[in-house]
């Protein structure tokens, strides 16, 4: 741990970075005359994407408060992060702590890579579980053990064009699926055959799954070991989703086919767009000024009024391998303080998971954030099995088969349940084995 630190802080070694071989030799030699105090703890933290870019701005204050700790942030690109985490686990190279997407948490927990955090929380004055949105907190609890502290949350809801909706005769945002259908039909009639009412990208499973969790039927059944996609609830959500394509309200397109979603939203190619909080900042920045008063956000309509969505986002986790759990916990506590969460929100637009952070006027008065606030109260965790991401991809393929392949929903959903059961086969056999042992 000491040698790399020396290389980074020693300017003249860095200038001759070309002599890699020499440098490696020097690193060992220079270890003895390190400028860093020897009792300083260096925490390795992995961040993903945009969050990794902005978090160093918060860490300067943390290091000032804790002079004996230095945090070394390493950024992973979102597309490669999952593989990187798994290979790091296989190669015993995990950092001390990381930002971990909610859907990956069950996987890392199943690997036994994460430290349980309940004892830390019990002794903490900063982190109050009751202050967090219930669904988000629950996402981090796997088989009764807490493995992560929510860092920021995201939930998918609908962005819409106020001006087009008004012109189409829709004065208020719809709350139920029936009202939404009426609105979509009206928009389509208004914009004509060349444009659409809503964008539901066929390469994303989130829109469909967020509609589906508004129904009471769970996505998986039998202790999360079998698919439950032929349930009445999922069928209703699926029918609503397919209807949008059959009635030509939604284009049969993937996001990759639309070069620039922001431009197209601005051009009115579609009027509703189901997406996440990061797009609030994007729309503010990328839409022309004349359109800035013409867009808004609304909670996803449900079968009988907004009923919830999948609780997404990332948590901070402590890896079992870490030799400095106490210091890591200090950092997690620091990043969980409402003041830091608000700064974090300012820096990158991510939404805080604590109600007390939302009480701040900066967020309470934000006209785009209020819809998120409402929906977060109802957010639910996605099924907490390591196989979930893979099953979600199958859901996407099933919807694509029904939309692009025009196959019957009955057959598609039967196949989906069958495929899900295949994917969960190992999980079933392992649960059966552990029952036998007991």
């Amino acid at each position, binding site marked *: 741990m000491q040698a790399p630190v020396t290389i980074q802080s020693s300017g003249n070694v860095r200038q001759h970075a070309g002599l890699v071989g020499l440098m490696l030799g020097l690193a060992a030699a220079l270890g003895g005359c390190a400028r860093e105090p020897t009792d300083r703890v260096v925490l390795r933290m992995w961040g993903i994407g945009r969050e990794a870019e902005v978090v160093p701005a918060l860490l300067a204050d943390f290091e000032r408060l804790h002079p004996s700790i230095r945090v070394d942030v390493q950024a992973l690109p979102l597309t490669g992060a*999952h*593989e990187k985490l*798994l290979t790091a*686990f*296989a190669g015993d190279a995990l950092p001390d702590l990381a930002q971990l997407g909610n859907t990956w948490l069950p*996987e890392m927990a*199943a*690997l*036994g890579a994460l430290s349980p955090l309940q004892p830390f929380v019990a002794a903490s004055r900063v982190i109050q579980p009751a202050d967090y949105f219930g669904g988000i907190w629950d996402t981090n609890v796997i088989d009764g053990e807490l493995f992560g502290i929510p860092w920021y949350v995201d939930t998918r809801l609908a962005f819409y064009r106020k001006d087009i909706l008004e012109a189409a005769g829709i004065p208020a945002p719809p709350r139920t699926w029936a009202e939404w259908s009426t609105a979509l039909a009206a928009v389509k009639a208004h914009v004509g055959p060349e444009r659409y009412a809503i964008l539901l990208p*066929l*390469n994303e499973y989130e829109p469909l799954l967020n509609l589906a969790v508004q129904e009471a039927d769970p996505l998986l059944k039998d202790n999360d070991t079998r698919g439950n996609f032929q349930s009445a609830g999922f069928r209703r959500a699926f029918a609503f989703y397919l209807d949008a394509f059959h009635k030509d309200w939604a284009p*049969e*397109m*993937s996001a*990759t*086919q639309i*070069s620039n979603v922001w431009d197209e939203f601005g051009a009115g190619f579609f009027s509703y767009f189901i997406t996440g909080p990061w797009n609030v900042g994007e729309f503010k920045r990328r839409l022309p000024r004349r359109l800035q008063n013409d867009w808004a956000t609304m909670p996803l309509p449900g079968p009988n009024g907004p009923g919830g969505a999948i609780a997404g986002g990332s948590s901070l986790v402590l890896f079992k391998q870490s030799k400095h759990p106490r210091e890591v916990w200090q950092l997690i506590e620091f990043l969980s303080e409402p003041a830091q969460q608000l700064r974090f929100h300012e820096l990158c637009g991510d939404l805080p998971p604590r109600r007390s952070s939302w009480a701040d006027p900066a967020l309470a008065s934000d006209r785009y954030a209020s819809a998120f606030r409402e929906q977060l109260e109802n957010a639910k965790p996605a099924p907490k099995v*390591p196989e979930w991401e*893979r099953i979600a991809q199958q859901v996407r*393929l099933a919807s*694509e*088969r029904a939309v*692009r*392949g025009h196959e019957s929903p009955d057959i598609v959903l039967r196949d989906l349940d069958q495929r899900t059961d295949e994917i969960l086969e*190992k*999980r079933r056999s*392992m649960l059966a084995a552990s029952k036998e042992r007991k």
Partner: protein
Amino acid sequence: MNENRAGWLLSAPALIVLGAFFFVPVLAAFALSLTDFDLYALADLHNLRFVWFGNYVDVLTRPLFWKSLVNTLYFVGVGVPLSIAASLGSAMLLDSQRARWKGFFRTALFAPVVTTVVAVAVIWRYLLHTRYGLINYTLAHFGIAPIDWLGDPHWSMPAIILFAVWKNFGYNMIILLAGLQSIPPDLYEAARIDGASATQQFRHITLPMLRPVLLLVSIITVSGYFQLFAEPYVMTQGDPLQSTVSVLYFMYEEGFKWWSLGRASAIAFLLFALILAATVLLQRFGRRGEMA
């Protein structure tokens, strides 16, 4: 005896390196393909089950495997002839007596080979864009309605083939150009005196003289094209409707996305068998031609 030992001694370094970095990993991968190594096994080796040829059976009964195989064969069957034709055509143009600025064109036509797939894929996505793309814009002048290149399962593979051929033809072009330049010019001279037309010269001189080079080029191209991966990975991610999932892409998803390393190894061995069969066939075909 002594000479024998010296021989072994001299080849030992190469053999050790080959053994450690080739034969051992291949054997390990084969052993892996007989287990259901996955995330759970990664966590705790007790969760590893020995399944014999279960993975092979499982893969061979998965519709997606057959679909990916058909997609790959489609890509190889159309892409390879098209690619070699493009390479040969451009090599002959470059070799022509009348060609000007040969150096410039050689570089320009070779350029796609050395560009990064990811960067040019972005450009190609724009070219293929349904509403704003240059390709559909040009087609519109001939009265052809816009084609949804990357969204229509019937057109996605042709789009990938087009992209791959454009990206790769320059490499074979250089090899074929060298082959063309080594054909003695007096053969053409003699043919011209005998009154042979350009097509006759091509059929009876160029093609036979190029045969060994063409055989080499097709073997390299076939085995390369069977390993279709980067193009769908950056352009379509296997979409739409899994029409651009190749065998290798299927393996990548099983192994690195879902961490079913056992099954992914099984796919790798199946793909190896496939490529081996294809190259052996091609070589037979080439040899038979030589005897005739």
